[in-house]
């Protein structure tokens, strides 16, 4: 036991000596959380719009004013002809255009029906759909305003409730994803260099001739990163709560327990990489470049898994962060208890045990 403690102390010295790596360990998560939380959001707003108003009458002016007042749109100077709309699309300054026909008001007054046309930039399909929805709603609202007494004789009025996210925080979806991503990359990358570094420096020989057991070496290597990662997790949680105003709905102890489990999974993966590689660079390449893409792709927070080809969905089942993402979303954002996430927990536990065993098996006690 005493041996283990002194070994862990040695590992801590290693970690604290390397200021740049420490900076990565704590700096990267903070920057990512802030970026994701503030800058990235699935909301659509401030979108450039232009109007090609052939009518120039009261009605069209009023609709234009309504659009100008909407926070979703950024009104660009109206265009004078059809070709200018295309020009603006090509400059990238607008994403949609609204066209009023000549005699818009007359048509509306005389025949009671008038048409407007929306042109949306389909390059980004979801944004296009949302923009058309916004504009249609604004126009429908105006129509209602025109004639407040006229309404459908029979109508179903939907009362919409936004579950788990009343204030429609557009970045909510990203936060659990980023936490999973950070652990997956940072924990794995840092531990993956830890053993291979000793191999490179030649200090591995000293370790091997000591009476220290391989399992002890693995534990001692993992403990400092486990502790640092837990501190990291606390920082991320504090940032999410106080800076990004994310409400933690579920039980905090459960959240911690699940996170520690996931950290252990990542550390085991890192140890395994460290055991099978021979240079820091290879270890880094595998753990950062190699892990980055599958994690980003298959966790499910950025790219919707259900739209992927079957083979990809299948691959996603072996990516640990996928399960952690489900767990943390359920516990943190939806406030569910353990009975909803036991399956994922079991899978993560199994993965950790498997990875640790393989890592231990691959720990070479002889030099080549």
């Amino acid at each position, binding site marked *: 036991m005493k041996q283990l403690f002194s070994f862990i102390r040695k590992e801590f010295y290693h970690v604290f000596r390397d200021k740049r790596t420490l900076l990565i360990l704590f700096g990267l998560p903070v920057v990512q959380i802030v970026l994701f939380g503030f800058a990235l959001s*699935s909301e659509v707003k401030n979108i450039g719009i232009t109007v090609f108003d052939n009518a120039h009458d009261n009605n069209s002016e009023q609709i234009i004013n309504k659009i100008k007042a909407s926070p979703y749109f*950024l009104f660009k100077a109206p265009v004078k002809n059809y070709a200018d709309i295309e020009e603006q699309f090509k400059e990238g300054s607008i994403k949609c255009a609204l066209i009023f026909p000549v005699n818009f008001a007359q048509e509306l007054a005389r025949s009671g029906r008038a048409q407007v046309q929306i042109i949306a930039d*389909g390059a980004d399909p979801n944004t296009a759909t949302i923009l058309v929805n916004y504009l249609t709603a604004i126009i429908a609202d105006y129509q209602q305003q025109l004639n407040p007494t006229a309404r459908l004789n029979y109508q179903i009025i939907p009362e919409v409730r936004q579950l788990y996210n009343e204030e429609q925080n557009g970045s909510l979806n990203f936060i659990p994803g980023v936490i999973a991503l950070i652990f997956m990359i940072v924990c794995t990358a840092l531990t993956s260099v830890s053993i291979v570094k000793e191999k490179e420096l030649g200090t591995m020989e000293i370790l091997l001739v000591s009476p220290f057991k391989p399992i002890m070496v693995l534990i001692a290597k993992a403990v400092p990163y486990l502790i640092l990662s837990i501190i990291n997790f606390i920082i991320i949680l504090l940032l999410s709560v106080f800076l990004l105003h994310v409400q933690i709905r579920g039980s905090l102890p459960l959240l911690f327990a699940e996170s520690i489990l996931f950290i252990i999974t990542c550390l085991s993966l890192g140890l395994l990489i460290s055991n099978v590689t021979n240079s820091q660079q290879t270890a880094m390449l595998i753990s950062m470049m190699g892990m980055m893409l599958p994690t980003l792709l298959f966790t499910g927070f950025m790219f919707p898994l259900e739209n992927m080809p079957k083979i990809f969905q299948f691959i996603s089942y072996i990516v640990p962060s996928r399960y952690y993402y489900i767990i943390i979303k359920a516990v943190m954002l939806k406030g569910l208890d353990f009975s909803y996430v036991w399956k994922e927990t079991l899978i993560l536990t199994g993965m950790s045990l498997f990875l640790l065993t393989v890592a231990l098996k691959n720990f070479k006690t002889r030099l080549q």
Partner: protein
Amino acid sequence: MKVLSFILQKEFRQIFRDKTILAMMFAVPTFQLIILPLAANFEVKNVNVAFVDYDRSTYSQELLNKIASSGYFRIVGNTISYTDALEMIEKNEADIILEIPNGFERNLVREGSQKVNMAVDAINGTKSAIGGGYLMAVLADFNSSLDVNIKSPKSSTIATAPRIDVTYSVWYNPLEEYKYYMVPGILVLLLTLIGGFITALNIVREKEIGTIEQINVSPIKKWQFILGKLIPFWIVGIIVFTIGLTVMYVVYGIFPKGSIPVLYLFAGIYLIALLGFGLLISTFSNSQLQAMFVAFFFMMVFMLMSGFFTSVDSMPAWARQISNLTPVTHFITVVRLIVLKGSGFAQVKMEFLYLVIFALLLNGAAIFNYRKTS
């Protein structure tokens, strides 16, 4: 000039000697460009609706059929209670609950209006916005058909109310397929990763191996050294870009609508800026590990801020400023504009100016920061 050609010869030999680097530069991006767009599909389809029907009347059944036949929704349960439906949302089996209260049909016919409850899982903003929007549209449609169906003495008022019909068309991507949006973006991203990482590692490697000292004591000038590093990787980048465009056409059938020379002009300038950035990182770092970490960090920020995933317009003002200060943003914008919309040089000249400034600044800083004495 002669000195430069010798340095170039050396660099090319080093590149071609290392087979892993070669594979990383050419095979990996090609592979990724083929695979990634398959995964990056943000289309919202098959929104799962839990239909909770406490009324069980003709109208509620009609509404259910209308929703089911609209094509956007999958009804995942309709004999259940609200609690069961909420449970389905908690388990991620449903996205939206539509609750039809008891007395729905009676109230609708007698009083002319009836409220229904709609609860949306709002954690995923895009899905809830689009799914909720679709469902509202189906309801609105159902409302207007109700008037025709229920005979009513006061139904004459509706005909006189003015009505604005909204038609819409979606340009540049009428089928609203995601590949048109993602493939050009991914191409830029891969070029960025290659250009940024490989150059960042390059000078540091000379430092680690110690060969940089030999160069330092030689009469090679700073600019010759930097240029000698830039030109080979610039050529590699252009080749990767060409392969990328070919993959884009052959695999995804996307052919640039705009001028290809203009596209290459931008790619050329962008690569210079990017390589300058990689070199700058390498002059700051002492080990490949450090260089990799720093490059990784910046690439991450660049990638997230560039508008590749989420629209730059929706960011807060300060984030838009940061986004403007990263070369990737401008290049992604330009590539999407030229490839999808066929924009000409005149329409994107501002972006060109930005990229030129980046190229000058970054390379200037790299030359300035490279010291021949240690």
